[in-house]
């Protein structure tokens, strides 16, 4: 499932990112914000209009806004991390 289809408030883990779908700068920005393979994320909020764009993503102790086009490049797997890790 790609991140744009992940229902809000359900924890998931990033399993793959198709970097070639993103511009080099966008890819760089996502990486510097920790949106990369293995990261644990939750969709916290979505916009209201067409396609409920953009998304607010909780990652670690940060909230990051990104657009649906970016989320589409991110493949996630639903499910919380094991005990001892933070959701």
């Amino acid at each position, binding site marked *: 499932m790609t991140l744009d289809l992940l229902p809000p408030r359900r924890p998931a883990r990033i399993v793959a990112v198709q970097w070639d779908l993103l*511009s080099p700068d966008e890819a760089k920005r996502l990486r510097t914000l920790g949106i990369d393979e293995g990261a644990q994320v939750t969709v916290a*909020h979505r916009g*209201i209009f067409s396609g409920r764009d*953009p998304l607010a993503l909780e990652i670690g102790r940060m909230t990051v*806004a990104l*657009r649906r086009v970016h989320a589409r490049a991110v493949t996630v797997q639903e499910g919380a991390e094991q005990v001892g890790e933070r959701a």
Partner: protein
Amino acid sequence: MSKLRTAALVGNPNAGKSALFNALTGARQKIANYPGVTVERKAGRLTLPTGEPLNLVDLPGSYSLDPASPDEEVTRKVVLGEFPGEAMPDILVLVVDAANLEQHLVFAQELIALGRPCVVALNMVDLAERDGLVIDPRALEQSLGVPVIATVAVRKRGLDGLLEAIANMPAQEQHVGPASPTSQASMSERRQAARKMARGAVLSESREHRLHARLDRVLLHPWLGPPILFALLFVIFQAVFAWATPFADALDAGISGLIDVANEVLPAGLLRDMLTQGVLSGVGSVVVFLPQIIILFAFILVMEQSGYMARAAFIMDRMMAGVGLSGRSFIPLLSSFACAIPGIMATRAIADPKDRLTTILIAPLMTCSARLPVYAVIIAAFIPATSVGWGVGLQGLVLFALYAAGIVGAMAAALVLRRTATKGGTSGFIMELPRYQLPALRDLGIGLWQRAWLFLRRAGTIIFWVTVVLWLLLSFPKAGPGESQSEVSIAGRIGSAVEVVVKPIGFNHEIALALIPAMAAREVAVSSLATTYAVDAEDEEQAAEGLIPQLRAGWTLPTALAFLAWFVFAPQCLSTIAVARRETNGWKWPVVMLLYLFGLAYIFAGITYWLAVAAGL
């Protein structure tokens, strides 16, 4: 140790760098140009506990040394000593957010790997504790290998310890040539290490529900968020007018009083005329807008410092995407309501170059505070203070329409520009939404003081000189009997030439005259009109009557409306054009900006004039 050492504050955005900088330097700071939040180069002086003076620089927030925006480029260059005219900092003060270590330690590691003297300011430990997170600075110190000092910038906690650590940094021999980042760990390796270090440093952590998540649930709610934002914007604009009035009236009375005093004390003559008709009426007519500017900036600063501004960007992103921009452009555009200059400078945080350029080009369409004097005077003179019902006044409605015209014009311009001059791929929107925090009074105070000072300095320099020169040009040569001073004078002749061009759109001689000095700054239009009419006044009494009755006597309603329409679009601000030139590295885009804005101004002023005349107004 004779050399003055420089320390630089470096860190991720939202690490509390600006607050730390304010806490360390107090009001002793120098902003090289017009400030945006941590966008401009800020430097300050302080004294270390050893008595050694220290130069402190606040660098723009960055996520890494590999820049993704012009902002980050500056940070990289300064840190590596590659910035022309800027000494390489002797000490790096890495500011990290205690509540978000696994993110902030990524960049910190990259900086420490440079091998330069580093101190870590573990900032906002109080907010971390509020979120149920207790951090051990010693553990962090061990894993990072550099001194770590816990600080709460907004409460001045831990500052002595931080200064001591800075003082203890060895005075390093200057590198020969710029340092370059040594080949170091990859970003994902640093991220893993950051995660490990962060976990190792956490003493206790509760799963307390974080305040910001609860606030976001309301403020970013798909149905509640946008109405809340628009209500807030409405309150801001209401406040700018309603709250400022008593202060503006008091200032106005003070200036009138000064004119009376000058008229009594000074002997009649050239000097007195210049002082009263030129300086006091001219500069005074601009200074009365200080209260409005302070109120507008107070709201913008609170929105920025509380973390709400990023939410506003989130809410606005979809709408901005409609015209080919992103939510990121919302922040510079909102700042442009105060002044386009900090607005244009704040575009440095926009990563996409086409996005950034478009935002720069449309920023002057946002109704800046310099237009306010123009609008306020014309509205007061020509729009009756009647109510249109539901407690809404006609004057306020016209003002709202002028603001709306600017916004609609800007959006339309963005739409066209993104399909023509700044064509390019769709822009992205990726930004961190910082945690909410209460703005500190000191940071707010310093921010407001800096902006008020910049405004007054402008009034005291540019506007002062323009007014004086205009007064001189208006006063000579002296008109003979039966002639109008403002037509016979040198300025009058220049105005007559301009009048030929602007007559078709309903502008009279006085307006043509005011447009030229108003190129320096829009608000000069008011002081120019004031000076022109003061010079033309037959006696003291008529001059003292003020501008508004004279405007009513001399202008028709269609002319006044056309004048308002002109100022919605006209790029009459040399400083904005100069900043646009600097930010776009050349004359091409400022010229594009000038042409398209003057074109729009001419067309819309013309349409307004002819429609109003046709409607029999």
